[in-house]
Every structure is written in C-alpha cells, then in structure tokens.
C-alpha cells in the first residue's frame, strides 16, 4: 500500500465493526430522513389553491353572481363568507380570516348592460407574496376573459392564442418539484454527521491520540473512515429515491443508475465536510452546531427554494460554493427533465473536486494536529 494511505484497510475494518455493533443507532439515523420526507412531502404544497376569500356583493344580480361563480371555480379562491358592508370586508382581511376580499359594486350589472366599464375591487393581503401574486394573476385573467367574452361575437377565436405547455411536471405536482431538492438536504444532513461524529468520538475517547503514535497516515485514517460511510450514504440515497418514486409517485424521467452514480460525488462532499468539521470540533456538541451551519446555505443558496438566477450577485456567487447547488441540478435534471450524462457531468466533476479539496484540507489539518497535539 502506498504509504500516504497507510492504515486505510485497518481503519476501514474497524469502522465496519463499529457500524455493525451499533446498528440500531445507525438504523434510526437513516430512518429519520425518510420520516422528514414523508412529513414535508405530504405537508408542503407549493401550488396555491383554495385561498380564503370574503365577498361583498353589493349588486347581487345575475351578472355579479356569474362573476363570483367564475372566481370560485378557478380553484384559487374559496369563499368563506359573504358580507354586507365595506367594514366587514376589510375586517376579515385585517383579522387574517381571509387573504382576499372581493367587492362587486352596486352598479356592476347596470354598467355591463349599458356597455360601460364595470369595476370590481380586489383586496389582497400582501403579507405572503406568492399568495398575493397568484391572486393578482387569477383575478386579472378572469377579468380579461370576462371582458373579451363580452366584446367578441360568439364562436369567434382570439387573434393571438397563447398555448403554454409545461414540459416537465405538467400537472405542477409539488412533490415532483420539491422532493428532488429535498433529497439534497436530507442526504447532506445524515452523511455529514456520520463522519463528523465518527472522528470526534475518537477524540473524546482519546483513541485518536493513540492512532497518531502508530504509522497510520492522515489520508489512510480519513479515507478509511470515509469509505464505509460512503456505502451507507449511498444506501440512504437509494432509500430516499425509492420513497420518492413509490410513495410519492414522482416519476423519474432520466436514467436512475446515472442518478445513483452522480450522487456518489455529492455524498463524498458531504462526508468530507463532516471530516473537516471533525478536525475543528472537539466534542459532539460542537460538531452538531457546525454541521447545522451547512444546512441553511444548502436550503437557501442552492436553488432549492429560491431560484439562483434572481439572487443578488453576491449570493449568486456564493451559490457556486454550495455543493447542494450542483446536486439539485443533477436530481432535478435527471428526475424531472430526463437529462443525461452529457448535460450533467460538469456538476459531478465540480462535486468531486470540492470533495477532494475538502479532504485534502482536512488531512493537512490532521497532519498538523498530529504534530501539534
């Protein structure tokens, strides 16, 4: 064995024994991400529908009732109450009972009949921007449609007919969009802890110091620790993917083997990150805190929740240093768009490079620590 990796086999053997001996702890640490996936997968719907709506129909005649019906049928609004005055309308929104208030004025039908422009007041609670945006879009569209129907003769067609077609995820199912990204967060969470704890435990027990007096080299030690957990991380990934596919019915458009292959470098990065953390942390508590620091950037700067393109330049640049960015690119690419190796090899390479760099930095730190302990 080349001397740089001295001790790799021995440490690997020992880690496998640790894992086998404490299988229950490991099992639960692998089950928790699946539970999180169930909760988040069923609980989060990024599509906005059935927004609580309060209606003040001051007109009350057929035209106004038709308009209300069209709003209700849009699936965006759910009318929870009809009120009889302006005060109750505003009060319903201020109190938070309703997000949207619609007021049809008393002369709505009259003005339509006399071919005059009729106005409808739509009050929207702006405190949730995505709800507000959806409410604006749907009410405007319905207003426009209503107007066109009135000016155009029956059975005529629109001059310009826009036909949007959603290429991927045509039903806009939330899990299809949400779960591939969640995979990155869950996987990072588990794997980082695996290696971080494994080394910090040895620090706490004093066995690490003992190892430093043997001919084990830092790279042998770190890779011997990393490789068994690469296997476990990979197993976890397969479980997450199986859950996503069979419990949440997210279709995988691309090659699932390619997905498995390209997730190896991501698991490698997470494990290396754990090792780097362990080179700094002296107790499991410290390691937990540092590992949590890595989770928020993965959620916010990876494009998982907010599109990277709309980030301010500074954060856009940061996103390039977040491993999740590349992995979410890979998962969404393969699962949703059916992308192939030619599209995604750069992401895989970026992850592999990151992982190697982190590992080298960690090995240097351990080398110096051996000499400075």
């Amino acid at each position, binding site marked *: 064995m080349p001397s740089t990796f001295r001790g790799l086999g021995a440490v690997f053997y020992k880690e496998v024994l640790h894992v086998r001996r404490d299988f229950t702890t490991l099992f639960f640490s692998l089950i928790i991400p699946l539970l999180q996936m169930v909760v988040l997968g069923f609980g989060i719907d990024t599509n906005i529908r059935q927004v609580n709506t309060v209606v003040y129909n001051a007109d009350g005649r057929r035209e106004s009732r038709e308009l209300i019906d069209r709003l209700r049928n849009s699936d965006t609004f759910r009318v929870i109450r009809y009120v009889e005055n302006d005060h109750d309308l505003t009060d319903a929104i201020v109190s938070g009972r309703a997000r949207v208030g619609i007021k049809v004025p008393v002369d709505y039908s009259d003005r339509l009949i006399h071919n005059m422009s009729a106005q409808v007041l739509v009050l929207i609670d702006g405190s949730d921007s995505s709800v507000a945006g959806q409410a604006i879009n749907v009410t405007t569209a319905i207003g426009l449609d209503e107007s066109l129907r009135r000016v155009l003769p029956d059975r005529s067609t629109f001059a310009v007919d826009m036909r949007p077609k959603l290429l991927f995820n045509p039903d806009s199912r939330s899990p299809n969009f949400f779960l591939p990204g969640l995979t990155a967060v869950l996987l990072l969470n588990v794997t980082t802890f695996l290696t971080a704890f494994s080394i910090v435990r040895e620090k706490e027990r004093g066995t690490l110091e003992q190892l430093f007096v*043997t*001919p084990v080299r830092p790279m042998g030690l770190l890779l011997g620790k990393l490789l068994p957990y690469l296997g476990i991380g990979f197993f976890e990934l397969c479980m997450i993917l199986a859950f996503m596919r069979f419990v949440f019915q997210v279709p995988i458009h691309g090659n699932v083997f390619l997905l498995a292959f390209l997730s190896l470098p991501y698991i490698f990065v997470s494990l290396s990150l754990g090792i780097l953390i362990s080179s700094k942390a002296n107790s499991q508590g410290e390691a937990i805190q540092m590992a949590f620091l890595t989770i928020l950037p993965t959620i916010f700067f990876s494009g998982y929740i907010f599109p990277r393109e709309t980030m301010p330049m500074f954060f856009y640049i940061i996103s390039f240093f977040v491993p999740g960015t590349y992995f979410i690119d890979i998962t969404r690419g393969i699962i949703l768009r059916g992308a192939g190796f030619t599209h995604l090899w750069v992401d895989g390479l970026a992850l592999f490079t990151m992982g190697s760099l982190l590992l080298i930095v960690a090995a240097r730190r351990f080398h110096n620590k051996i000499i400075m302990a």
Partner: protein
Amino acid sequence: MASLETNQAAPAISAEHLVRRFGRFTAVNDVSFRVEKGEIFGFLGPNGSGKTTVIKMLTGLLPLSGGEAYVEGLDVRKDPESVRERIGYMSQNFSLYHDLTVAENLKFYGRIYSLEPARLKRRMDEIIQLNGFGPYVDRLAAQLSGGWKQRLALGCAMLHEPSLLFLDEPTAGIDPVARRQLWDLLFELSGHGITFFVTTHYMDEAERCSHVAYIYFAKLIADGTPNSLRELPDVQPAGTIRVEITTPEVTRALRLARQIPGIRSATIFGQSIHALIEDRFDLDDLRELLLKHGISVAEIRPLAPSLEDVFVELTYKHQAQLEAARA
C-alpha cells in the same frame, strides 16, 4: 525499507538538549538523557512538569524547538514514521475501542502495523496467552475491569513486537493486584530485551525501575540508577546521616525537630519521621532531647534515603538555586 534496520549499538533513546517551547512558555528546557536497551526507565515528575511533552517529542508527535532525539538509533525529526513502526505507546486512559471485543481491538492494531495474517494470528495467540485473555477474547472492551483494560491496552501496544514501549502512567487508577501483575509482566518482558519508558507517580514503582529520571518544571534534576541517586552528595551531604525516628506523636515531634539546629530536614512517613541530621549528633542524645520535650521515642535508626527523599532533596536544592539565580 532500509530505514527499518536498527542500529544495534545505539541506545534505545538518546535525548540531547531537548527544548520545547509553546509561545513564550518553555515546557522542556535542555533535557538530556540516555536509555539503554532492555532498561526499565522510570520518568517521574509532578503534573505539568513536562513528562508527556517529552514523550510526545520522542514519538514524533511534537516537533523539537531545539536539541536532538534518537529513538532506536533513528532521528525522530527526520524519520518519525520509522520510529513509530518500532515503538509502542500506551496512553494514560487506555485508549481502547469500547464497542469492539478484545480480539477485535488486537486485530485492529495488528492491521495498523500491517502484520501478515500468519504473524498476526501468532502474535494474537501469544498476547492472549501471556495476559490470560483466553476467556475474554469475545468480550467487549467496555465490559472489562480497569486492570483488564490496561492489560488489553498494553497488548495492543506491543502486538507488533516493538523494541521500545512508552507507558504513560500505566497504573493510574487500577487496583494493587493488577498493578503488581503489570510490573511482573514488565520485568519478564524487559528480560527479553524490550525497553520500557514508564511515567508514574508511585515511588514504589520508581524503586523498581533500573533507571530513573526526575523532571521538575521543565528541567531534568535527577538521572541515574536508584542506588546511584541515593548516594548523590546533594541527597546525602558529607557529614550527615539519615535517620528514621519512630514515635506515637509524629506531628508534635516534627514541629520540634524542625526547630532543632543540626537537623537539616524532616518529613513524616506514617508513624515515623525521616530526618537528615548532622553526624555530630549522637542518636541517644537526640532521643534525650526529644524526651525532654515530652516526646517518647520508640526507635531511632539510620536509614538509607528512599527515592522520595532523593527527589525531595533535589527539588529543594533546585529551588534554592533558582532563587539564588533570581537574587
């Protein structure tokens, strides 16, 4: 692997003017000593005086700020890896893997040192036999008592047949029987030519060593066989004798003895006082003197200095020198 050839003539350890500084603090100050092959070298000193730092320097864990160190003839600064191949190290807290069995702990260390399977098996059998691990091979290390843990740690440290073993307080916190058994084992192994570097706080253990050194606040203030140290002029100045005064009233006797001119020093040892007195004293006169102050004396007899006496005397002298230098 030419570097693996050991220089047969070289001492096991040769430390020359070792210096280690941490920032402005000097943890080890110009420490020199030699340990010959097959010796049991006892390295003593109060906590924080630099014992562990010296071990770390000799095992290549800490770079030297100055001086030279050779272990088994190899330069620690140039070739720490080869040094680590041939030494064994047992730390204070018996660093074992508690969730691994006795056999697995041994096997792990065997693999670390890349022993071939046949040799690993032979060595494991030998260690298990030597330590009487037979019934416990499949027991988890966590379930062993302190004494057994310490034996297992020693077994792990010597599986690869090192010619030199560093034992950092090997008997801290274990029962007297296990302590005795460990020392018996050390003597047996040292008979086979293995060198031991042992740190300890126990004076009776120091007495058993073939070579002792005492480090006091970064300086080595004693180095030699226990007997040669007892005969040092600083310990036994010309014109003085060391006596043991046995009396039921040790505390009062001590207070008094310290006021009598001609008694250079006095310390309590159980039911007796060890005192260094000028040899112009007649022992009977001394008994009279004590009796006059109402202290009945059972026995006064000459005494060879213990190692504890040696270290106490040398420490006083070293402190006096430091103060003189400061003044």
